[in-house]
């Protein structure tokens, strides 16, 4: 029952066509090494969901691994927009279902708690709702409050096959802490059939047990634990390392055209066998040392 595996082994557990909930938010705690390995293994036809679209989803879309994206909009913060996602939507190759942050969070929450649907005040009156309603087999419906008779919008629960969550600290059973805000990650884990934890540090279970209020991910939800320092690079992991601004800028440049992206993928994904080789490629220890978080500031 050992859950501690290599990244390649964890990724190999994911069939093409799966629905993945990814933990990234813009440029922080993105599952970047995981996304690169998914591309390397040729897994395709994925459905990807997250509240706010992030660099991990954008890279997977750019590499053609994603068929369907369920999200609340997103960007790379000041570095730019999600160029691959946007090109996919504009060209029609990506089936994107666009919500707001809360409506995705509520869909995860409904999935987490085993609820049949979730009422919400958002989306009403917007073209986001109009687009969602026009889809066949819509995931939105209207419902009447049995107590007041008032009409409400209802959202269908999200139940991803796998949540993939980049965390700071985990034990070997996947009991994991998340430092900083957790955005949708706790609900993603609970809504999903199972979770893959990608962790910067593995600590003995005794450490987790000393401060169990911090355990955002209980091990019972977790199928695989991957120990992978700098697993979010070039995104940041709060209290461990900062985002790599130069490398994100290079990504933004590379995603301006499909051709440039192909060259980038050859260099950073297909041309390196694994995460360790990737880290060497982008500058190795010298570069990574500069990204290490200040223990006081946390970034």
């Amino acid at each position, binding site marked *: 029952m050992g859950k501690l595996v290599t990244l390649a082994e964890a990724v190999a557990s994911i069939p093409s066509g799966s629905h993945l909930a990814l933990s990234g938010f813009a440029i922080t705690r993105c599952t970047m090494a995981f996304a690169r390995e998914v591309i390397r293994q040729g897994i395709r036809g994925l459905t990807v969901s997250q509240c706010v679209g992030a660099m991990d989803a954008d890279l997977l879309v750019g590499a053609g691994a994603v068929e369907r994206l369920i999200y609340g909009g997103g960007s790379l913060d000041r570095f730019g927009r999600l160029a691959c996602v946007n090109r996919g939507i504009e060209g029609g190759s990506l089936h994107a279902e666009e919500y*707001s942050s809360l409506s995705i969070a509520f869909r995860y929450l409904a999935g987490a708690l085993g609820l049949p649907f979730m009422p919400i*005040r958002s989306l009403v009156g917007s073209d986001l709702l109009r687009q969602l309603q026009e889809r066949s087999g819509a995931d939105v419906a209207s419902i009447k409050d049995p107590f007041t008779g008032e009409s409400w919008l209802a959202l269908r629960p999200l139940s991803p096959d796998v949540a993939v969550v980049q965390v700071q600290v985990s034990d070997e059973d996947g009991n994991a802490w998340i430092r*900083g805000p957790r955005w949708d990650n706790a609900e993603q884990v609970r809504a999903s059939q199972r979770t893959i934890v990608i962790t910067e540090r593995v600590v003995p279970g005794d450490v987790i047990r000393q401060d169990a209020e911090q355990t955002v991910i209980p091990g019972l939800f977790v199928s695989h634990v991957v120990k992978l320092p700098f697993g979010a690079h070039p995104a940041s992991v709060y209290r461990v390392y900062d985002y790599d601004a130069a490398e994100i800028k290079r990504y933004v440049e590379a995603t301006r055209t499909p051709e440039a992206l192909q060259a980038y993928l050859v260099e950073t994904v297909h041309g390196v066998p694994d995460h360790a080789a990737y880290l060497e490629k982008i500058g190795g220890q010298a570069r990574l040392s500069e990204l290490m978080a200040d223990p006081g500031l946390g970034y």
Partner: protein
Amino acid sequence: MDLDYTTSELMAVAGARELKDGEVVAVGLGLPVVASFLAKRTHAPHMTILFELGVIDPQPVEPGVGLADPRVWYRANVLSSFVDILGSVLHHGRVDVGFLGGLETDRFGNLNTTLVGDPRGKFRHMIGSGGANDIASCARRTIIIMRQEERKLRESISFITSPGYLSGGSRRAEAGLRGGPSKVITDKAIFGFHPETRELMILSVHPGVTLDEVRSTMGFAPLVPDPVTATEPPTAEQLRLIREEIDPERMYMG
């Protein structure tokens, strides 16, 4: 202290003046951050600042590149989640003010951050909603801050990401939405909305800007009061706080 000020500084100060002490404010990045921290350090020390991803009342010492930047979370009182901030505070009905930027808005304060037309007649996909639709739908009032250009203040926008007054009048309330936009702050003027028709109307024009300049940089004719008043300029203390403490690197102020 140089009492000359940039239009960004004037916009941030105008935004800060909209916030009252004790209010709960949901903030997007950029000028809304500067306006909110400015208000909190001056007339509204008990204001609560929320970032959607799970951050309450941070005290940053450096500006960040966005909500995903831990610089912006620094010394927060609470680090939690979307469900906590957007659910139990915003959706519950506890947010007094939502502070939103926008790419395009129309006569009724509807906001588009999803699909914009490009010169070739195609649509370009932008950033979508994030929490903006939730804030526009659930806050007691929203304040919109954006640059004023004819292609940004449009007669009709191509996509409503975040609803304002929809097609005006009582349409918003009829759709089941509370609140609505109270102000649009641009680099030329401050606008409000007519209490009945919900049409955009000029409240004040910034010092040095003419009424014609305001009208000619919009895609539709706003309601105009007579006489037109001038926007109050920033104080020396407000400028000092922005320049020395809140945004010394001029990251948000452009």
